């Protein structure tokens, strides 16, 4: 195994230091380290962070390999600075059995670009009718700890209660896609002034908030862990803040796109901006940034959702919801949180690595940059700026909402257990 000597990086944005990576671990951090035979990585001016962890990725395999595969999605993740991603369960077949989650886990190991951590479906076939074999998935080689019907809400309150309770047995967590389905029939975009004018059926904020309010009460009642996916409204942030103040074991994530974009994007009727939950208002964006800054929102989750061209190049109502996120997530966080001074680099590490790893119970990730720790880390050039070109993305799909937008920050190198997956900004394999 090659030994790497990273020269002059700034761990968590602190003073420059050398980082020696050996045998999959951080061997030493300090001034003017040297190591014979080590490959030197010049990192002056770069920020070193623990490898990023995504709680919410759609890798589309099995089933829609034309949109993404475990391998292409893993490469996109590595280029985005991630060393672990949670692969959502809404594949075809659905990841609702030990067999499917083990398949996805094994494909991730074979690709070897990030640790792919499968998410198990809460209910059989995502149908919201009866529990999938959650324990079998937890006990499988994939060691599933996060369960989600993402794409669908576990809307039946009794079933949700049982799921929350049941996964306590193996320290699992239910990640809820909060959307009251009766309030979002046919919904196309955020319900407000713009939906009224554009004639697109509205997705009311209350449909998300009502489920979150219900679920934090259920989680409190049964003493279980709840994670809320892709929080998108100011009201949701308020409910989460209230729940946390009561000691409810609730965590939450926000997507990069909800931190940056608003429903104004829908004016183009370009379905690249169609996503579920929908892009909201300026006031919601502000509340989400504030929530992420003060820790009410624990993590950034990309909700990376690749779609084939024909599923997006259509009428708005016909298009599938979802947008790419892995490769630009860190840049968006720098743009919306770091550059405005709302999050320092330690904060970025906390929200994009430490806390998501803790929520998902992912071993070896989200660890401090310290000797003896697994060498999962990323080097970022904060001064670089680049215009997003969807054709240049590693994802198999092109549905990036950031096309043509200039964003700050560049992932220069990513190390997974001591082995570089990205060097000089390019995927190693």
């Amino acid at each position, binding site marked *: 195994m090659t030994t790497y000597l990273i020269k002059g990086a700034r761990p968590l944005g602190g003073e420059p230091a050398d980082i020696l990576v050996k045998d999959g671990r951080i061997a030493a951090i300090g001034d003017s380290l040297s190591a014979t035979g080590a490959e030197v990585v010049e990192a002056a001016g770069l920020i070193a962070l623990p490898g990023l962890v995504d709680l919410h990725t759609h890798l589309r395999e099995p089933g829609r390999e034309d949109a993404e595969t475990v391998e292409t999605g893993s490469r996109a993740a590595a280029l985005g600075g991630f060393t672990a991603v949670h692969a959502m369960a809404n594949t075809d077949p659905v990841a609702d059995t030990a067999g499917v989650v083990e398949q996805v886990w094994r494909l991730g190991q074979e690709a070897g670009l990030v640790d792919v951590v499968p998410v198990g479906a809460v209910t059989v076939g995502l149908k919201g009718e009866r529990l999938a074999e959650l324990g079998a998935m937890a006990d499988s080689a994939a060691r599933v700890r996060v369960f989600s019907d993402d794409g669908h809400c576990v809307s039946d309150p009794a079933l949700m209660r049982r799921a929350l309770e049941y996964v306590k047995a193996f320290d699992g967590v239910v990640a809820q896609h909060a959307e009251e389905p009766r309030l979002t029939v046919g919904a196309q975009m955020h319900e407000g002034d713009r939906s009224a004018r554009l004639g*697109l059926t509205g997705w009311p904020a209350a449909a998300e908030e009502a489920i979150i309010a219900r679920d934090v009460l259920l989680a409190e009642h049964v003493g279980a862990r709840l994670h809320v996916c892709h929080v998108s409204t100011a009201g949701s942030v308020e409910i989460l803040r209230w729940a946390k103040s009561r000691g409810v074991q609730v965590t939450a994530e926000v997507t990069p796109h909800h931190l940056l974009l608003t429903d104004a994007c829908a004016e183009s*009727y370009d379905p690249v901006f169609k996503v579920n939950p929908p892009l909201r208002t300026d006031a919601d964006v502000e509340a989400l940034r504030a929530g992420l800054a003060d820790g009410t929102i624990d993590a950034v989750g990309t909700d990376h959702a690749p779609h084939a061209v024909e599923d997006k190049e*259509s009428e708005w*109502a016909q298009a599938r919801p979802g947008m790419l996120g892995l490769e630009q997530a860190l840049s968006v966080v720098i743009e919306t949180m770091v550059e405005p001074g709302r999050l320092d680099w330690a904060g970025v590490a906390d929200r994009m690595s430490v806390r998501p790893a803790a929520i998902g119970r992912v071993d070896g990730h989200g660890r401090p940059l310290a000797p003896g720790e697994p060498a999962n880390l990323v080097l970022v050039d904060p001064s670089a700026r680049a215009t997003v070109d969807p054709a240049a993305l590693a994802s198999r799909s092109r549905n990036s909402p950031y096309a043509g937008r200039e964003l700050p920050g560049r992932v220069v190198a990513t190390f997974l257990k001591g082995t570089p997956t990205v060097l000089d900004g390019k995927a190693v394999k």
Partner: protein
Amino acid sequence: MKRHLLEAADLDRDDATLVLDTAAQIDQALAGREVKKLPTLRGRTVVNLFYEDSTRTRISFELAAKRLSADVINFSAKGSSVSKGESLKDTALTLEAMGADAVVVRHWASGAPHRLANWVRGSVVNAGDGTHEHPTQALLDAYTIRQRLGRLDGVRVTIVGDVLHSRVARSNVGLLHTLGAEVTLVAPPTLLPVGVGSWPAEVGYDLDAVLPKSDVVMMLRVQAERMNASYFPSAREYSRRYGLDARRMAALPDDAIVMHPGPMNRGMEIAAEVADSVRSTIVEQVANGVSTRMAVLYLLLGGSPQ
């Protein structure tokens, strides 16, 4: 004028007035003529691309194009949101290859004409898209009001009914505001969109309160499927609270007119004696639809050959 007519906001006051004046000139030019045809668009191709059944609108556009001597192709691409036929983009590229100078599109999806405009070089005319807009309907309505009342500036127009799902209402609110009219929307609160407060219109729930202050009452069609979705309790209650009957019509000022974009539900939103009264402009609206659409096609295509 912009190259496309996708929504009322594409027309500023001068553009909109030009369309109405042009329609009036066309009416004058054709009045009393045996051959109701002008040579203006000879050699130009107009495609009627209809993803939704609408015999009235299609015939109106077809007649408008033919009276301008354009070649007209009717392309019925009726497909449900579920059935996967040829994509809108592929259809657009096909029309492009055939050299369509204008595409008149009716679609069940809001925004489809906007998408189409990205893919074709010719002019796109929105003939009604989902619950978004129907700008030529608003133009013919404005033309009809001006014809009857002699002006639009300061005219008080009350639009009644299913504003939430109405492309006619959206286009009329925008265009009539542009032309200086004062618009009031009256509907049960369930049939007004959240966000209607940002529109350039007054909003009310009480039809009787606004009728004496209305120069124009425009009744919107209430679709049967709304009745099963708890927008209101029953057709009878809707009719009682928001229908225009003879008693309510009597509360209007003397020269006020009654409009309806059709097709009507007689006995539901409008009583037969109102629809057939002298105040009703419903038949004129149909006739004016042809001249207004001629004006639109003429202005979009009549200039320089592309």
